[in-house]
C-alpha cells in the first residue's frame, strides 16, 4: 500500500463502487490503516508509564482484541458460510469454563483439577472444538434465519446449563483462574503488556488463518454453499458437512478467545455468556460489518471504547446516566443498522466519516479536557470520534433512505413517484 493511496482514501477521492470486490478493496485498506494506528498506539502505550497506560493497554486494547477474535469467528461464518451463528459466545464461554475447571485449585466452585495451565488450554480448546462439531452437526441442515434461531437457543441453553450445574460452575462462576507463568507470575498487574502482546499475536494468527481458509478450496466451496446450496449439492458437494466443518473451525477460533478471556479476567461466570453477552458479540459484528473479517476488531474496539469511555464523558453522562450504557448501545445499533446495514466498513459516506470523527474528537476532547481534565480529554476524543462516525452514518441514512416514498408507502395507496435509482 503506498502513501498516495492512503491519502486518496482519507480524502475520499478514491470512491470506487461499493459493491463486490471494489468495496472490500477500499475498506480493507482503510481498516488496515486503522489497525496500524491502533497497534502503534498500543506499542507506545506499553512503553509509556502514565495514568492511562495500564487502562488503555490492559483494558481497552486487550479486550477489543479478545472480543475481536470471538467476533471474527462469527463474521467468518456469516461472511463465507451464510450462517449467522449466535452460539459463538457459548463456544468461548465453554472454553473459558473448561480451562477454569481444569486449572483452578482454590475458589468456591468447579472441579478444581489444578492442572498445568497449558494442559488446561489444550483440554479447553479440544473440548470446545468437539462440542462445536456436535452443535454444527445438529444445526447443519438449516441456514440463514433458522441457523440464527437454533444457535441462539443453543447459546441461551448453555447459559442455563452453566448456571444450574453447580459441579462445573453455578451462577457465581469459576474464580481465581491461573494464567501460565509468562503472563500470570509474579503478578499481571505489573506487566499487562505481556497479555496484550499474547492477545495481539493470537489475533494476527487468527486473522491470517481465517483469511487463508477462505481462499482454500474448502473456503471457496463454502462460499458456493452460502450462495446456492442446491446447486452445490447437485454438483456433488456435501453441503451439510461444509457447514459442519466451518462451524467447527469457528468454534476453535472462539475457544482461543475463551482462553484469552479467562487469562485476562481470571474468572468466568454464566453472566458472561447470557443473552446480553450473545447480543453484545452480535452487536460488535454488526458495528464492524458482518460481511468482512476485519470488521470484527473494528467493531470490538468501538464497542469496548464506548463501554469504557462513555461513562465519564461530558454531556452524555447527564442525560443517559452512568448505568444506562445498554440503552446507548441499543440506540447506536439501531441507528447503525438503519443507516448503514453493512456496518462501519460499509459506510458509504466515508468522505464525511473521517473528518467528522476528527472534528468530533477534537471538539469533544477539548471540551472534556477544559472541564474535567486530561481524563475527560481522552474520553472526549474517543467518544467524539465515534460520534463523528455516527453522524456520518446519519448522513448516510438521509442519503440512502428514500424517506418520502417510505412515508407515503405507509399511507398505502398514496405513493409518490419513485426517484431515480443510485448509479454508484
Amino acid at each position, binding site marked *: 500500500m503506498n502513501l498516495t493511496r492512503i491519502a486518496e482514501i482519507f480524502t475520499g477521492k478514491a470512491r470506487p463502487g461499493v459493491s463486490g470486490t471494489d468495496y472490500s478493496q477500499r475498506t480493507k485498506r482503510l481498516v488496515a490503516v486503522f489497525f496500524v494506528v491502533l497497534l502503534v498506539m498500543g506499542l507506545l502505550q506499553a512503553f509509556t508509564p502514565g495514568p492511562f497506560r495500564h487502562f488503555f493497554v490492559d483494558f481497552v486494547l486487550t479486550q477489543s482484541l479478545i472480543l475481536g477474535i470471538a467476533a471474527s469467528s462469527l463474521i467468518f461464518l456469516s461472511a463465507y458460510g451464510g450462517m449467522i451463528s449466535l452460539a459463538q459466545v457459548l463456544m468461548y464461554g465453554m472454553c473459558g469454563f473448561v480451562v477454569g475447571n481444569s486449572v483452578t485449585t482454590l475458589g468456591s466452585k468447579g472441579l478444581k483439577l489444578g492442572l498445568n495451565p497449558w494442559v488446561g488450554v489444550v483440554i479447553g480448546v479440544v473440548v470446545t472444538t468437539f462440542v462445536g462439531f456436535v452443535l454444527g452437526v445438529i444445526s447443519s441442515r438449516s441456514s440463514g434465519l433458522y441457523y*440464527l*434461531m437454533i444457535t441462539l437457543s443453543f447459546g441461551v441453553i448453555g447459559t442455563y446449563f452453566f448456571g444450574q450445574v453447580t459441579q462445573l460452575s453455578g451462577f457465581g462462576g469459576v474464580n481465581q483462574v491461573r494464567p501460565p507463568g509468562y503472563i500470570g507470575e509474579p503478578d499481571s498487574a505489573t506487566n499487562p503488556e505481556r497479555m496484550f502482546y499474547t492477545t495481539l499475536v493470537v489475533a494476527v494468527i487468527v486473522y491470517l488463518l481465517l483469511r487463508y481458509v477462505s481462499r482454500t478450496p474448502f473456503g471457496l466451496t463454502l462460499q458456493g454453499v452460502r450462495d446456492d446450496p442446491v446447486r452445490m*449439492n447437485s454438483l456433488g458437494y456435501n453441503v451439510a458437512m461444509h457447514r459442519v466443518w466451518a462451524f467447527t473451525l469457528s468454534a476453535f477460533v472462539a475457544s482461543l478467545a475463551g482462553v484469552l478471556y479467562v487469562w485476562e479476567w481470571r474468572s468466568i461466570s454464566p453472566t458472561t455468556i447470557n443473552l446480553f453477552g450473545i447480543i453484545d458479540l452480535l452487536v460488535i459484528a454488526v458495528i464492524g460489518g458482518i460481511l468482512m473479517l476485519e470488521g470484527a476488531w473494528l467493531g470490538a474496539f468501538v464497542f469496548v471504547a464506548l463501554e469504557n469511555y462513555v461513562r465519564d464523558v461530558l454531556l452524555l453522562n447527564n442525560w443517559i446516566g452512568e448505568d444506562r450504557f445498554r440503552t446507548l448501545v441499543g440506540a447506536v445499533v439501531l441507528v447503525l443498522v438503519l443507516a448503514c446495514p453493512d456496518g462501519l466498513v460499509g459506510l458509504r459516506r466515508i468522505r464525511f466519516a473521517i473528518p467528522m470523527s476528527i472534528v468530533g474528537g477534537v471538539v469533544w476532547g477539548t471540551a472534556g479536557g477544559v472541564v474535567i481534565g486530561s481524563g475527560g480529554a481522552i474520553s472526549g476524543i474517543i467518544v467524539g470520534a465515534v460520534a463523528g462516525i455516527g453522524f456520518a452514518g446519519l448522513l448516510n441514512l438521509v442519503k440512502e433512505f428514500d424517506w418520502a416514498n417510505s412515508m407515503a408507502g405507509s399511507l398505502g395507496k398514496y405513493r409518490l413517484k419513485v426517484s431515480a435509482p443510485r448509479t454508484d
Partner: protein
Amino acid sequence: MTDVKLDEGAREPSGRPGLTGRASSHYRRIRTMGWRQLVPRLLLAAVLIFIAVWILFVTEVSSAQAAINEPGRFLRSILDSITNASLYFIVASGFTLIFGLMRTVQMAHGSMFLLAGYIALTFQRERLDINQGISPEQVSASNWLLPLIFAVLIVSGLGLVIQQVFLRWNAGQDLRQAIITIAISIIMADQMTANFGGVAKDITWPREIHGFIETENFRYATHRFFIIGVALGVGGLLWLLLNKTRTGMVIRAGVDDTPMVQALGINVHKVFAVSFALGSALAALGGVIGGSHASLAPSVDAEWLLHSLVVVIIGGLGSLRGAAAGSLLYGLAKSFAPAYLPASLTNYSIIATFAVLAIVLALRPYGMFGRAE
C-alpha cells in the same frame, strides 16, 4: 434457500397425511425408506420406550419416584407440563404468526412479554393503591382483567409502531430486521430495569381464580387450569381466525406467497400490521398471565425468548399446529426432566431441552410441522 437432500425423496415436506389415508401412506413410507431414514427412527423409538419404561417403573433414585408407585406425582408432572405448554403456546403462537407471515424474527418478543407484565403490575397496584404483598383476597376480577386489557392494548400498539416505523420499509431483509428488533430489545430491557428495578415482582391473581383443587392425596392450584383454558381459547380463536375469516385467508395466502397476494390487489401491509399487533398482543397476554403465574424480573425476557424460539424450532416456524405440538413437547421435557432424572443429576435437567431440540432437528430440520423454504 432450500437444503435439498437428493437421497431423501421419501420425506413429505408438509407433514400432511397423503390422500390414501395416514396408515397406508405410513406403511408405504416405511417400505420405501432406506436404512439412512430407518435407523434414526428406530433409535428414536428406542429412546422413547426407554423414557416411558424409566418413568413408569424404574426410577427409584429420582425425586418423583416411579410413576407406578407415585401416581399422584406423575399426574402432577403431566398437569405441570400442560400448564407450562399452555403458556408457551400463547407466547410462541404470536412469535410464529409474525415469523410465518413476515419472515421477521421478533427478537423483542420476550421484551414485549416482560413489558406487558410490568404494565399490568403497575396498573394493578395503582388501582388497589397497595405497593407490596397484595393477597388474592384483595383482588377482584376487574382488578386483574382491566390491567390485562390495558397491557395488551399498549403492547400491541407498541408492536404496531415498531413494525410501521422500523420494520415495514425493510421487508425482505431478514437479518436487518432481526438486528433491528435486537436493538429494540436491548433498549427495552435496559429501560425496564431502570424503571421497574431488578427485584422480582409478581402480579396477583384475582380471588375468583386463586385457590386449590384438592382430593385426599392430591392438591393443585386452580389458576393453572385457568391458564390451560386460556390457551385452549387462544388456540381455538386463532384457528377460527386463520381458517374461517377473510383476514385469516389473506394471512395464510401471505405466508405462502406474499408477492402474489399483493399482485391480486390486497393491501398486504395492512395484513402485516394486523398480524404484528396480534403477535405482540399474544406476547402481552402471555406476559400478564406469566407474571401472575411466576414472577417478573430483568432476565425473564431472555427466558421467554428462549421458550418461544425452542417451541417454534421444534414445532416448525409459521405453523399454528407446530406451535401447539412444540409447546406440548417442550413442556413435557421441561417438567419431566427435573422430576424424573436421578436426584443427583437434577441440575442437569436443561440438557433435556437441548436433547429434544437436537432430536427433532436431526429428524426434521425445519421442525415437526415446518416446511422447507
